[in-house]
């Protein structure tokens, strides 16, 4: 394949050409309630060509029929030439990489019969259904993938990779009369079949939580000291800091550059945040990004001060900084754009108890249903929460939604524990119509002095 792509490159007429080809083998098994929803094996393949000419913009072409490769290279060149630019697009230099990277398949999913996958998911689904008669609906979903990936560019890069992935998720819905509650957990790993065994207890916990939430009151809306558990703190790092650090928002916008100027203080000295695409064994980890740049650890906020950001080759050149290996595409159907990999809040000191012992009233927000950022504003929904009363974890509460202004909230992080962990959730990140991108988040327990919690807002008015 590499030779075929290299041959297509020699016929390319543009100043810069890159070609990505992917061949995906995947299977999935989904149980819904007591029924198998589907068990399928899929094969998908296609390519993406991106071309740049001096004084012209990007021309891009994606396709699902590889016999069209040469025509699509020519088409991308035509598209580039139709885009006339006054200021040329520059790419920051990256030494062309040639590599063969076969990641650890950890039990190659292609060799496991679909019937065996069905049995495993059925048992996990049964574990949820068995928890209580109030569980009215479940969703147990398994998906695996092996992606054979090729990348070449006209500067001499040539990469061949085999990338595995498995995602397992459980959702349980409990109902009593008009009250409907949901428990949800997922894992996503760049591993194989061995990694999804022995998860029964996790699925049972999902259903138990949905049942517990039936009796939990809605949290009273208002401003509280809030402790984020590791999972939600990781989502916070991703939503609130990660997205704003993506240089494609910043590079062409003078006001935004001013707002995100390196050296600006964003938080107290306890706060260090980064993104590490090279961290071993994580779902957001790959040796190279989709421009062939090696991945690496990029510190974004160091001891409260903005020190770095995430780049593609284009944004790095525009800002006079180094590429960071963060140009990623979810598949051959899309162009690489600046994305996160494994985003983290670095370890602090002390324990969870140290964070709550001096709080008379607060909220312990746990787990993540999701999050969204609109640059300076963000919102994330905890899976559940507990009130903190007189220094102790008290009753469970539901509908815990954190809404905040990024700048204010970052500055209010006043204590970070020393219990860091990575959370390899399923799902993924969405941006620019590309979702879900495999990412990982990690953090210790984090305390925010004061944050707005939505919920039963009328209760406080």
């Amino acid at each position, binding site marked *: 394949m590499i030779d075929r792509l290299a041959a297509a490159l020699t016929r390319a007429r543009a100043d810069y050409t890159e070609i990505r080809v992917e061949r995906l083998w995947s299977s999935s098994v989904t149980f819904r309630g007591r029924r198998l929803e589907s068990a399928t094996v899929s*094969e998908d393949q296609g390519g993406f060509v991106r071309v740049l000419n001096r004084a012209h913009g990007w021309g891009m*072409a*994606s396709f*699902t029929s590889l016999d069209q490769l040469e025509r699509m290279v020519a088409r991308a060149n035509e*598209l580039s030439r139709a885009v006339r*630019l006054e200021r040329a697009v520059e790419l920051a230099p990256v030494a062309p990489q040639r590599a063969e990277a076969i990641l650890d398949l950890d039990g190659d999913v292609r060799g496991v019969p679909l019937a065996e996958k069905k049995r495993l998911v059925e048992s996990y689904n049964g574990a949820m259904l068995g928890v209580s008669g109030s569980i009215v609906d479940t969703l147990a979903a398994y998906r695996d993938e092996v992606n054979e990936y090729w990348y070449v560019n006209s500067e001499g890069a040539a990469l061949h990779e085999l990338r595995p992935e498995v995602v397992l998720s459980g959702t349980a819905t409990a*109902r009593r009369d008009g009250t409907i509650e949901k428990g949800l957990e997922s894992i996503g790993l760049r591993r194989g079949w061995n990694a999804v065994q022995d998860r029964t207890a996790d699925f049972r916990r999902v259903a138990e939580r949905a049942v517990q939430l039936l009796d939990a009151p809605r949290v009273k*809306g208002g401003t509280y000291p809030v402790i984020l558990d590791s999972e939600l703190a990781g989502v916070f790092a991703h939503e609130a800091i990660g997205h704003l650090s993506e240089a494609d928002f910043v590079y062409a916008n003078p006001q935004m550059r001013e707002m995100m100027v390196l050296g600006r203080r964003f938080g107290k000295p306890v706060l260090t945040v980064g993104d590490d695409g090279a961290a071993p064994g994580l779902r957001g980890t790959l040796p190279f990004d989709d421009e062939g740049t090696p991945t690496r650890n990029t510190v974004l906020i160091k001891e409260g001060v903005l020190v770095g950001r995430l780049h593609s080759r284009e944004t790095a050149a525009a800002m006079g900084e180094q590429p960071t290996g963060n140009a990623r595409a979810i598949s051959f159907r899309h162009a690489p754009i600046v994305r996160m990999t494994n985003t983290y809040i670095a370890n602090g000191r002390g324990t969870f108890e140290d964070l709550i012992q001096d709080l008379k009233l607060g909220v312990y927000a746990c787990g993540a249903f999701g999050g969204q950022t609109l640059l300076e504003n963000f919102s994330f929904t905890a899976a559940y929460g507990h009130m903190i009363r007189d220094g102790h974890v008290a009753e469970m509460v539901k*509908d815990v939604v954190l809404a905040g202004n990024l700048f204010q909230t970052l500055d209010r992080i006043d204590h970070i524990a020393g219990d860091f962990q990575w959370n390899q959730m399923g799902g993924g990140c969405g941006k620019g119509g590309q979702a879900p991108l495999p990412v990982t988040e990690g953090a210790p327990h984090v305390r925010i002095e004061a944050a707005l919690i939505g919920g039963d807002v009328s209760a406080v*008015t």
Partner: protein
Amino acid sequence: MIEALLDLARRRVAGGEEGDGGGADALWRRAERTSVAFEWGRLKSAGATEETGINLRVRHRGRVGVAGMTGIVGDDAGTRQAAPLLDRAVASAELGEELELAFPSRAPLPRVPTFFDRAADASLDQLIQLGQGVLERLTREGCQVNVAIEREVSETRVANAAGAEGAYRATAVGVTADVWRIAGDDVLTVGDEITGADLPAQRELDGLVQSITARLGFALAIAAPPEGALPVVFTPAGLSAVLLPITQGLSGKAVLQGISPLGKKVGERVFDERFALTDDPLVPGRAASRPLDDECVPSRVTSLVERGVVRRFVYDLETAARARTASTGHGQRGIFGKPVPAYTNLILGETGNGKRERSPQFGGGLLGDIKDGLVVDELIGVGQGNVIGGAFSHPVALAYRVERGEITGRVKDAAVAGNVYELLGRIAGFGNDARWSGTRFAPSLLLEGVSVARR
């Protein structure tokens, strides 16, 4: 070409003891997209996408399985590539559940215009000029503008082994624009989009520019957020959080799973008696319109809620079979995976006032009676959490304060919350500004007693 695949399937799938357990259907779709992107005020890229795929479903010995593929070489899915696809579908069926899935027989299809030559024939330069025009009209001091144009030309063929079939070509054009203004740490973004099956008319482009300009103008001043249980106008775009629990609850799938609050409410008045919700796949010129669904069921209009009374839910073939009812023609399938029930064009209307004149004015004429309240145009985090129960709580992305009938500025750092089943039980006002937002046609709604919190 899918005929050859279905022929092969007919010979392969077995009916089981009763002889009625077999069958197959397939969808073939080819789409070509052309896109043009203006990023931060300048033309940046042009792209083309070509995608062809087949989705095959079989019923084999009474059990249902699916398989999909891309990478089709030429037109030849009938022979070399068809056999392994069929093998995978049969393997999927062997593990599948028993299901009395009845594939529809051949039926006349309604006529709906889905293909517009002007859209299909537009050159790359024409698309660039279209974007350039929008960009120039939105450019202003201190702001950055993004504009994207996308045009899709597609061809769909769907058929089953029972002899039903349909084929149509379709075009779709989307124009999206957003204006960014950053002042210190205040980030303001105001956007809008036009979607349709044809190239947008000048009047629609004018509407896009006016909508963004007006909302940007109101947003420049900042107003302190109010607090309490207040009247709130949800604009056609801002209605998403309010309507999402309802559309989830009206899905036959949610009803079947026993998680829809509307499941046992057919025939009951649940909403304000003026509230009507209809799914209409036959609206001319809309990108979601089509003569038949992806399972060979002819398109027809489905009344979901009429005069506040729940009428029916949407079903695809499988959920209909399980619920012992008929498909409403809402089967939607991609290349991979099995069909799912999905809406086409959702029309929210005021019963008895369907043909009210449209007004481009922001707020739809509903602001006059508001002493102190909000206009919500965009919320953050819609779709997160336990949506179907009806409770929502979201910070505002773009909202305005209304005092004594006038907009006094943009509200930041506020959140709105409520339960849609309580709020839609009595609607204080329907706006005269009904418009399309993606696949939804709705006016602004004035709802009372929405919780507004600030920090």
